[in-house]
C-alpha cells in the first residue's frame, strides 16, 4: 500500500502528414461514396496534434510521473521521425490498413505502449480543429 499520489502527464506533438482514404475491397464508386473527397487520388494532408497521456505514481525525488526529456526523445524517434512530413499510406503500418485517424490513433497508442518510462493511459489525435479521436476510450485507467 502506497500513499504516493497518482497523476497523469500529457504532452502534445505535431505531425504533418498526408493520406488518402481508399480500400481495395471497395469499388471506385464505393470508395467515393464512403470517403468522398478524402478519396481523391493524390491524397491530402493534415497538421495532426498527437496528445499522449501517461500516468503513474509521482516519484518523490523528482516530483514527476516520468522524465519529460525521455518521453520527448521516445516521441522523436518513434513518432516524429517515422510519421512527420510523410505520406501515411506509404508506411508499413498502413500497408494493408486504411490510414483513417481512428487507425492512426490506435497505431500511435501501440507505439507509446512500448515507452519504458511510464504507463500509457491514452492517445488523443486532433486531425483538424474540429475532429479528434481518443484511444483507448476508458480514461483515466
Amino acid at each position, binding site marked *: 500500500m*502506497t*500513499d*504516493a*499520489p*497518482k*497523476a*497523469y*502527464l*500529457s*504532452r*502534445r*506533438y505535431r505531425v504533418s502528414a498526408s493520406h488518402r482514404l481508399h480500400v481495395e475491397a471497395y469499388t471506385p464508386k464505393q470508395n467515393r461514396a464512403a470517403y468522398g473527397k478524402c478519396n481523391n487520388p493524390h491524397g491530402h494532408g493534415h497538421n495532426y496534434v498527437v496528445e499522449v*497521456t501517461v500516468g503513474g505514481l*509521482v516519484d518523490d*525525488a*523528482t*516530483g*514527476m*510521473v516520468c*522524465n*519529460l*526529456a525521455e518521453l520527448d526523445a521516445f516521441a522523436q524517434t518513434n513518432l516524429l521521425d517515422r510519421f512527420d512530413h510523410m505520406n501515411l499510406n506509404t508506411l508499413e503500418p498502413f500497408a494493408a490498413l486504411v490510414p483513417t485517424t481512428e487507425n492512426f490513433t490506435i497505431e500511435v497508442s501501440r507505439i507509446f505502449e512500448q515507452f519504458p518510462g511510464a504507463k500509457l493511459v491514452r492517445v488523443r489525435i486532433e486531425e483538424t480543429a474540429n475532429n479528434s479521436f481518443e484511444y483507448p476510450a476508458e480514461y*483515466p485507467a
Partner: protein
Amino acid sequence: MILLTRKAEFSSAHYYWNDAWSQQENQRVFGKCANRNGHGHNYTLEVTVAGEVDPISGFVVDLKELKDILEREVVSVYDHRHLNLEVPEFATRIPTTENIAIAIWNRLDGKIPSAKLHRVRVYEMPDLFADYYGER
C-alpha cells in the same frame, strides 16, 4: 451528475532541484530546469467539479463563488510569486506540473460548497499539462 470546469491563470517562477543530490545529478535529471536562478511560466489552471444540478437555480455551483475560491486559495498565493521560495508546499516538494496539480487539489478539496472536486488540470504551457483526480 454533471461536470463543470472553471479556468484561471497565474504566472510564476520556479526551478527543479533535489537537495539530496549533487549539482551534477540535478543537472543530469532536470536539465535547464535546474538553473538556480529559476525561470517562469504562464500557467493555466482548469478546475472541474462534479455535482447535481440544483432544481431551482439550475446551477451545480455558483461560478462567481468558484471563481472567488480559486482566486483566494490559489491565484492570490501563486501568481507573480516564486513557487520554490514563496509558496509553503514547495519548500520541500519540487514544483513540477504534477506536484502543482496535486498541491492545488489539496488546497481546494473540501472548500467548494455543493460540488465535489473532480479533476485539477494544470497547463505549464499549451503542449504540456498534468491531471490529478485525487488518486493515491
